[in-house]
């Protein structure tokens, strides 16, 4: 009884009392703890500010009138608040049609890429077959090869597209697929789209961690290979599939390389954004009646670009706010190891 009471008093004894008992260790430790967290807070605040500052700048600039841009007093809070920039940028980028195109393309491509990568990743993770190591090495090679190396020949490949010479045999000429969407869908279906190797790798890592017993139990209960995959494995893999889907969607949304190579004729947000300074220059030249776009002020054109960039990334920010867990947590839970 008395022992218990003793322990209780020791626990609730004053800070200084406990400090004296530990020979000054407690005080030192507490002070160090506070110092570390203050330093960390300052450092992290600075680094976060560093990352967020361009975004905040863009937001403030996008509400400024042209007059404010030249005003040396105005830096971050606009003097003449306006939403005119947004209207103009939306008009120049044909925002309402472009965003629908972008949505449709990104969604379909992301779904296609993830579903094909799931199949391939599952195959690599759960089956033993000859040459498995070789094919997986091919996946790694694919991740490492920059698409620019093969871009020249892909260009020609789709310009003079043919399947085993069949089209040439029947119609007498090859098909020009360069200005259609088909090549890119074909490439995505063949796992050769944007960063597709990475998704295969992530999904394989996930499936490898599922215990073998689960699969064996399903086999014993009479599930076939495909049924096991669909009914046992897929429901488990939801988190990693969502995160792969989110990555595929976002990277497709902002991608400039594949889009300008294969999807040049469809107005996508990323392409329109790239062209925005030129479009804007042309527009200014037209309304001022000048012969060329050389006279357009650089700050105003850049302000336009900032507005356009914001309009392109706003859907992504909204997505990120809602699906933040999907992006970060499943990436860290896959246990990426070499």
């Amino acid at each position: 009884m008395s022992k218990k009471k003793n322990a209780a008093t020791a626990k609730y004894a004053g800070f200084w009392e406990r400090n004296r008992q530990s020979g000054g260790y407690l005080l030192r430790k507490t002070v160090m703890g506070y110092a570390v967290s203050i330093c960390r807070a300052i450092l992290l605040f600075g680094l976060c500010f560093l990352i967020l500052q361009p975004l905040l700048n863009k937001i403030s600039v996008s509400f400024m009138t042209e007059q404010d841009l030249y005003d040396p007093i105005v830096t971050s809070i606009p003097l003449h608040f306006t939403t005119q920039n947004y209207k103009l940028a939306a008009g120049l980028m044909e925002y309402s049609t472009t965003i629908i195109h972008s949505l449709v393309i990104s969604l379909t491509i992301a779904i296609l890429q993830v579903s094909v990568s799931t199949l391939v990743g599952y195959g690599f993770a759960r089956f033993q077959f000859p040459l498995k190591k070789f094919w997986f090495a091919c996946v790694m090679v694919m991740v490492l090869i920059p698409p620019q190396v093969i871009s020249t020949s892909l260009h020609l490949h789709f310009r003079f597209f043919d399947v085993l010479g069949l089209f040439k045999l029947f119609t007498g000429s090859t098909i020009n697929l360069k200005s259609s969407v088909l090549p890119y869908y074909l490439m995505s279906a063949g796992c050769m789209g944007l960063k597709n190797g990475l998704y295969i790798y992530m999904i394989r890592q996930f499936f490898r961690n599922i215990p073998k017993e689960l699969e064996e139990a399903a086999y014993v209960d009479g599930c076939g290979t495909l049924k096991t995959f669909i009914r046992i494995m897929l429901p488990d893999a939801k988190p990693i599939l969502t995160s792969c889907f989110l990555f595929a969607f976002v990277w497709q949304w902002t991608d400039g390389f594949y889009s300008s190579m294969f999807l040049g004729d469809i107005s996508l947000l990323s392409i329109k954004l790239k062209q925005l300074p030129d479009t804007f220059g042309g527009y200014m030249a037209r309304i001022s009646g000048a012969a060329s776009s050389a006279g357009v002020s650089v700050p105003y054109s850049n302000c336009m670009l900032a507005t356009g960039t914001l309009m392109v990334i706003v859907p992504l920010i909204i997505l990120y706010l809602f699906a933040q867990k999907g992006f970060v947590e499943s990436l860290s839970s896959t246990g990426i190891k070499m």
Partner: protein
Amino acid sequence: MKRRQKNKLAGLQKRKAISGYLFISPFIVGFLVFMVKPLFQSLYMSFCDVQLGAGTFNPVWRGLFNYNYAFRVDAEYTRLLTEEITRMAIYSVAIMVFSFFVALIINGNFKGRALVRSVFFLPVILASGVMLKLDSENALMAAVAATVEVNAGGTAGITDAIQSILRTTGVGVRAFEQLFEIIDNIYDVAISSGIQIIIFLSGLQTISSSMYEAADIEGCTKWESLWKITFPMVSSLFLVNWIYTVVDFCMRSDNEIIEKITDLMNVNLNYGLASAMSWAYFVLVMAIVGVSSLIISKGVYYYE
């Protein structure tokens, strides 16, 4: 009896092998059609002069002419190549150090950790693809940033003062210059290290705290346990991150070599030279990745 069982087992294995191949068949087909074939074709084209006709193209064999032209005649290529590769090496190292450091800081337990983590991850989403290039070209943003900097840090700023002090010491000035360049471009480093931070963080979280406790009781300082426990435990992730960083850097849209190649292809329609240039670049980058990962993998420690 025994033989029949063995046969049956072989049959099951065969079936599984076939279904395995069926599962990865999209990859095999895609790899052969969209990767191997174009790869060999572009290798072949790099030795040719590709003439585009109406409806056809015919490569004419010219041997090493394109490579010769790229390295010895073209005014820009060699300069861009050395510039890009030194930039890649320096920035990749900086990104590794930065992301490891940030992961170490975020790994502790404090309020608002999730918020900080999501802020660091934000650039993976927002600074990808075309945004990266447009951001770096935006002069107005740079001007605004400069104004903010001047307003915040007085007239000269503390970094300038430190830089001038270090410059006057006269020791290792060149190394300092590289360091200053990285510090001036810390934003570039920060926005391209989102994924690396998350990977390091996931590695740090798997280290069991009992190791640190044991080390603490044995009288190990924090600094020692960083080098003796944390570093070896996440060393395999250094390899993953290093490869990811280098490859990511090669594919960035603000890479000048890539721009030059794309220009050659789309504007000048010089497919042969463009292929030669991209192959030379590719082989160099591969060599760098191979050698550096070999060196890193020597130092990797596997716990299991």
